[in-house]
């Protein structure tokens, strides 16, 4: 595996970091996380138009930048550092990947340009109450057979579900998993905000009561959706890496300047060695996230396993880094006014999103031949 970033990659990183430093500083994050909508339309539009981020992985013919998983990893890592509040994971990654990999061309033509331009956002509604992250457990079935159907039932843990302009719903049709497009303001659709552990990422429960929906995929979409989830999970792992790295930096910076008993707390091995252990985990997380991204772009057979590996490892690394950062900050880190908790909540929440580390490890185990199953 090449595993090296090009100068263009570094340039991309610099650009987005600069942008988020200006547009997603702590004040902005706090303002948006307390708001109902959770993001700023102007910034979103700017991200789409000036930086081409909304359509980062959308093919050129649909108005996107046609980049791959590696560029997405770079962008997500920077978003993770900045705790960006925006429907990026939901619209530009999850929904976009699902549409790209599983939807029919006409639907792609209709949807992707609008998403890439920032004119609309979308989300994927697939999780249900029972075994939410298991595609095969999806029970919602479309009523009707043709291009237009109605949907009834409930979807939960829908990312940015109250604000998305377009909702791509995964439901069964003749037993097959199928994608349906539902407008955010469709009749019979109730969108209820859920109280998130991580207030920087909004979640919703959607109730469908004979809601009109347009079929946008044919055949069994499950394999394609599994790949879309692997892409999403890989991107999320990079976001977790960015958050972990930021926690390490915050902790290290604080340890250099905070004095106790007449010397910097970072001169004490109790703190120094915690930072060293964080560093090892962050470097491992970096290897995990990057290698999963490179594997996707190289169409590596192991890409799904690499995604599971990255998700399980980066989740725990982020959680450890966030907790250690809080601990190293002492009482200060426990206050609302200090940003340590924002990272902790993002870490714990993203650890559970799309399934636990244990469940992702089970996928790795099965793939590499650990265990009887």
């Amino acid at each position, binding site marked *: 595996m090449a595993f090296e970033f090009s100068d263009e990659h570094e340039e991309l990183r610099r650009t987005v970091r600069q942008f988020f430093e200006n547009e997603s500083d702590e004040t902005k994050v706090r303002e948006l996380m*307390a708001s109902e909508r959770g993001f700023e339309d102007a910034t979103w539009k700017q991200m789409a138009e000036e930086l081409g981020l909304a359509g980062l992985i959308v093919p050129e013919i649909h108005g996107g930048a046609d980049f791959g998983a590696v560029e997405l990893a770079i962008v997500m890592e920077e978003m993770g550092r900045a705790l960006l509040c925006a429907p990026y994971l939901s619209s530009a990654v999850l929904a976009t990947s699902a549409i790209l990999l599983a939807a029919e061309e006409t639907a792609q033509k209709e949807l992707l340009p609008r998403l890439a331009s920032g004119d609309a956002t979308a989300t994927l509604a697939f*999780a249900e109450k*029972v*075994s*939410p*992250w298991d595609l095969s457990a999806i029970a919602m079935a479309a009523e009707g057979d043709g291009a237009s159907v109605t949907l009834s039932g409930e979807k939960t*843990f829908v990312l940015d579900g109250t604000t998305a302009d377009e909702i791509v719903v995964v439901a069964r049709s003749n037993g097959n998993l199928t994608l349906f497009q539902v407008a955010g303001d469709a009749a019979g659709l109730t969108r209820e905000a*859920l*109280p*998130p*552990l*991580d*207030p920087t990422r909004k*979640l919703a429960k959607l109730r469908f009561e004979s809601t009109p929906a347009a079929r946008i995929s044919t055949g069994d979409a499950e394999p394609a959706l599994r790949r879309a989830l692997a892409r999403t999970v890989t991107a999320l792992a990079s976001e977790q890496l960015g958050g972990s790295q930021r926690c390490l930096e915050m902790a290290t910076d604080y340890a250099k*300047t*905070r*004095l*106790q*008993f*007449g*010397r910097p707390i970072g001169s*004490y091995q*109790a*703190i120094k060695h915690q930072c060293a252990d964080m560093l090892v985990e962050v470097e491992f997380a970096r290897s995990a996230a990057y290698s999963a991204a490179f594997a996707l772009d190289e169409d590596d057979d192991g890409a799904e396993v690499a995604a599971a590996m990255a998700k399980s490892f980066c989740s725990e690394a982020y959680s450890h880094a966030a*907790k250690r950062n*809080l*601990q190293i900050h*002492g*009482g*200060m*880190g*426990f*206050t*609302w*006014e200090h940003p*340590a*908790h924002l990272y*902790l*909540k993002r870490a*714990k*929440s993203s650890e*559970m*999103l799309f399934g*636990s580390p*244990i*469940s992702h490890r*089970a996928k790795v185990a099965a793939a590499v031949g650990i265990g009887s199953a």
Partner: protein
Amino acid sequence: MKESELRERTRVLLDEVHPDDEGVSRVDFRSAQFDHGLALVHFPEGLGGFGLSPKLQAVVNEEIQSHAKTFYENLVVNPIGIGMGAPVVLTYGSEEQKRTLIKRIYTGEDIWCQMFSEPSAGSDVAGLSTRAVRDGDDWVLNGQKVWTTLAHVSKWGMLLARTNPDVPKHDGLSYFLLDMESPGVDVRPLYQITAEAEFNEVFLNDVRIPHEQMLGAEGQGWRVAITTLMNERSALGGGSSRKGGGPVSVLTRILAESGAQRSPAEQAILEDKATQLYIRAELLRLTTQRAKATQRSGNPGPEGSVGKLAQAEIYKDVWETCVAALGDDGLLYEPGYELRRPTGDFRGTGESSAEKHILQAKYQLLRSQANSIEGGTSEIMRNILGERVLGLPGEPRVDKEIAWKDVPRG
């Protein structure tokens, strides 16, 4: 005095004033209890007690509890006042102060708080910066205190301030009783990562304290404070008092309820983890029990740090495992993040009823992060265990022998 006499006196008290009776307020009853010497039996006569062994207080409490439905727990009435304020006034206060302050502490008329911590002095409490400068019969204080529990409802604060910056840090501190209603005292809620404000920040801006309200001599503040701190630390840690009780019972319950949502393998992994935590929690309980037995035989000391350190780590792990067991439900946080004073009844560490335990687990996932910080960080606890229990040598110190003002701070 014999137990039987103490019981008899308690019954006399109850005949006179009964806490269950309508019209008998908490202050009424505790005031009478104090006057009968049954409030703090180890305090001197006239100050709530009879100069007995503190163990005998249990006899009085037992007697009250067996004859009345209403029992006022000191920990609820005025935890800091009764636990730390009354003893320090008794030891260092003037006769006048003992007479006027202790009873009102006991009745709960005057709530007390403790103001040692400062933003720049976390683990290094003695490095604090709040300055007290003598001006005639008063001291004039300027500085900031932090993590002050109950400051917003307190009448009195126990405060440590620097009266001499030109000597090593421990030698330049003095101990004051601050009337929290004094001009220049500004109490502000300090919000935590849970969005609740259990604590306060207290800003002191040209606050005047009469010299008589200094406890102990000028420059002896650290010695006075140490007693107070010892009482605090031994109150932390020790785990549940009941086998299988406490946080781990919440975990056991969540695990049982949530099992269906995951694979047998994942459940087996979580169950083993929960069993490890169950065992650790049980051993924490037993170790505390052993430590108490040792203490009774006259050997108190830094061993309490074992419980403090272990409890913080175990409880944090328990709550995190609870949320892991909740699975996707852990993505949600029902209390929300509106800034507020504590309200919910799910935040205790004991068992909770009905569906409260899920809310409790989520809240505690956040709240317990401070367990390894408050009352002494786990890092400091390990130093104490290493140095004071195991006798390992200290580190080279750069702040011991020099004037406080010359020690780097920040």
